């Protein structure tokens, strides 16, 4: 059943698949993952810089033939993800795989290696497993050790295969369970024979460990066919799966699980060198699995540009830490400082006007609005005090400042969720266009594209508040960044309005407006991302505890 050679026809080729994998962005089920407290927040951030690279596998092991071709045939792919990649950055080369696909490629390697070892494929599979699928290291040690390597790996070197396998039912005293019963038994060439029930129990406990399973009493290895024979089914698949999983753990530099709940995709980064370049430029490394889930390859979090992984990590940690304080601030800062009447704060503007006494004040510092000017949200008083060092930051004010940025962040998160809902209706609208006024599917795609653009804009806007929070408020570039936030915010709102239109005729009539507004959002998003990267690169925005 595991004849490796006959399997070849089923093997999937490893192709650079990212163009396909990002097209599927409008899956509405993803919306849950955009919230800070969703599954994402529970994923421990990976540290890209210190992850092991010791036995880093060379991608040429998988596809030495394909690799060169990739560079020739697919130079930098112009896809929609270019929006997030700065032109100067190398584009990430990655593929989306499953454990089965990785295992299949390992089997192909085994097939290729057969002339080197002159061993049955099953034995080479054991060797590969023992060397954590690191072919290079295996070959190195093979030339040095030969027979010793076989013995260490639990392979029989005697050349005899007598006594291996399941034996027919007989009266048997099993030294493990100490039962004397009529039973099938199993033993390897070593002759350590046990009842089939004990062996089944023993193997079942070990299938999830991903390690070579040996005889219960010596180091001879059970091969996949032994395991399947004992278990009476394709149980070795499970062992191989867990072995590949441990391989992925050990190569977390170039392989990462899609962090979305229940997603079985693995992203394999083919060129880990470009990661360093990304890190240097404070750019994030976003990938999309074949289910359409986008995430940061660096930290496993959702797409968080313009924030880099460090800012993201600090921001998320802080949000969790301040959780209780935040609730307090958010529920107690709605009072007018002059007449104590409760005031509804609407949207992102800090310019509060009391509905009762008409007092104008700043939501962040609670002071008079007059000296604040017309900034989009920046609390000028906060900034001025900072400059003159007249009054030290009080913890309360610091918390208020944070609460403000946090609120902006979550507001955009909520809006993003509403956009996802909008997304569901956009699908119907496209259909409506087709059915009612005979617009072709391709022609109708501008709606889907607009929605996607809207979403990217929102995400950038959302995370820009993390970058802004850590920015030096007195720096000129911070002001430019804030202006950019304001511009993108307006652009996003007006595109969002446009997408609310229901009538297919009106949609088609205002079609150019969709193009224009979406194009504008695209440009504004790009500008904000670039500005954010600049802030980080120049150290004006710096994540701190």
């Amino acid at each position, binding site marked *: 059943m595991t004849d490796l050679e006959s399997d070849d026809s089923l093997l999937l080729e490893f192709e650079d698949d990212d163009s396909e994998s990002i097209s599927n962005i409008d899956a509405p089920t993803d919306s849950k993952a955009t919230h800070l407290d969703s599954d994402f927040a529970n994923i421990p951030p990976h540290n890209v810089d210190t992850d092991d690279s010791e036995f880093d596998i060379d991608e040429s092991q998988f596809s030495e033939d394909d690799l060169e071709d990739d560079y020739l045939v697919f130079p930098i792919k112009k896809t929609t993800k270019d929006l997030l990649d700065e032109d100067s950055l190398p584009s990430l080369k990655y593929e989306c795989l499953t454990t089965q696909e990785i295992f299949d490629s390992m089997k192909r390697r085994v097939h290729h290696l057969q002339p080197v070892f002159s061993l049955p494929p099953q034995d080479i599979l054991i060797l590969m497993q023992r060397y954590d699928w690191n072919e290079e290291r295996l070959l190195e040690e093979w030339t040095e050790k030969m027979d010793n390597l076989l013995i260490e790996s639990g392979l029989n070197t005697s050349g005899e295969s007598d006594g291996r396998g399941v034996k027919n039912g007989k009266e048997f005293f099993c*030294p493990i*369970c100490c039962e004397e019963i009529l039973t099938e038994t199993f033993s390897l060439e070593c002759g350590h024979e046990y009842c089939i029930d*004990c062996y089944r129990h*023993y193997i079942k406990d070990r299938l999830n*460990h991903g390690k070579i399973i040996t005889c*219960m*009493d010596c180091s001879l290895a059970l091969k996949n066919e032994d395991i399947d024979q004992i278990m009476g089914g394709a149980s070795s698949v499970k062992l191989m799966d867990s072995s590949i999983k441990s391989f992925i753990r050990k190569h977390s530099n170039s392989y990462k699980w899609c962090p979305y709940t229940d997603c079985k995709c693995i992203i394999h980064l083919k060129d880990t060198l470009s990661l360093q370049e990304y890190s240097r430029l404070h750019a994030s490394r976003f990938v999309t699995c074949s289910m359409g889930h986008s995430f940061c390859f660096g930290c496993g979090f959702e797409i968080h540009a313009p924030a880099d992984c460090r800012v993201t990590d600090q921001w998320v940690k802080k949000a969790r830490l301040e959780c209780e304080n935040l609730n307090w601030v958010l529920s107690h800062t709605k009072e007018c400082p002059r007449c104590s009447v409760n005031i509804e704060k609407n949207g992102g503007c800090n310019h509060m006007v009391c509905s009762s006494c008409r007092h104008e004040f700043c939501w962040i510092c609670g002071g008079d609005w007059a000296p604040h000017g017309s900034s989009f949200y920046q609390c000028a008083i906060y900034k001025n005090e900072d400059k003159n060092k007249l009054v030290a930051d009080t913890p309360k004010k610091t918390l208020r400042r944070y609460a403000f940025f946090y609120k902006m962040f979550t507001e955009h998160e909520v809006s993003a969720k509403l956009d996802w809902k909008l997304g569901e209706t956009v699908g119907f609208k496209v259909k409506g266009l087709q059915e009612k006024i005979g617009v072709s599917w391709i022609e109708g795609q501008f709606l889907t594209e607009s929605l996607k653009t809207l979403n990217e804009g929102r995400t950038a806007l959302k995370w820009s508040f993390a970058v802004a929070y850590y920015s030096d408020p007195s720096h000129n570039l911070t002001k430019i960044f804030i202006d950019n936030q304001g511009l993108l915010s307006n652009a996003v709102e007006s595109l969002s309005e446009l997408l609310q239109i229901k009538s297919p005729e009106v949609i088609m009539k205002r079609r150019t407006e969709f193009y224009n507004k979406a194009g504008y959002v695209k440009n504004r998003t790009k500008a904000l991302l670039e500005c954010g990267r600049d802030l980080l690169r120049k150290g004006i925005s710096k994540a701190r505890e």
Partner: protein
Amino acid sequence: MSRAAKEYKTITKVLKEGDEVYSQLIVGMEPKEDLTRWEALIRGPSGTPYEGCNFRLHLSLPQEYPMSPPYVKFEPYAMPHANVDFRTGEICLDILTKQHWSPAWDLLHVVQAIGQLLDEPVSSSPLNVDIANILKANDMNAYYGLVHYYIKS
């Protein structure tokens, strides 16, 4: 639980007949109440700071034994050893982990492996940091001194 019964038979036989390997190490070994709880008294191996003293071990068999390893502990506050938690008597020994345990081993194997651990402490995975540090520094006088100090107090 015929496996435990079989082990009981073997152990009593080994101890009665004075098996060469085990009688040097094991002073006594018997089940408490039922066959799932055992106590063993072992002799400190010669040529170690434990020589001349006896140490009590508590062994208990989980439901899945022998598919799962037995739980083994020294008497609390009685075993000063790099790989034993002095306060609880817990032992850090790889064959006692689910990952390394083989159902082909039995309680006698386990006791023997623990005897060996007294002879060859592993300072790289310490449960008693003080002793492990002295071992790493290779200061034998201090090692003997500290172990004896612990045993006496």
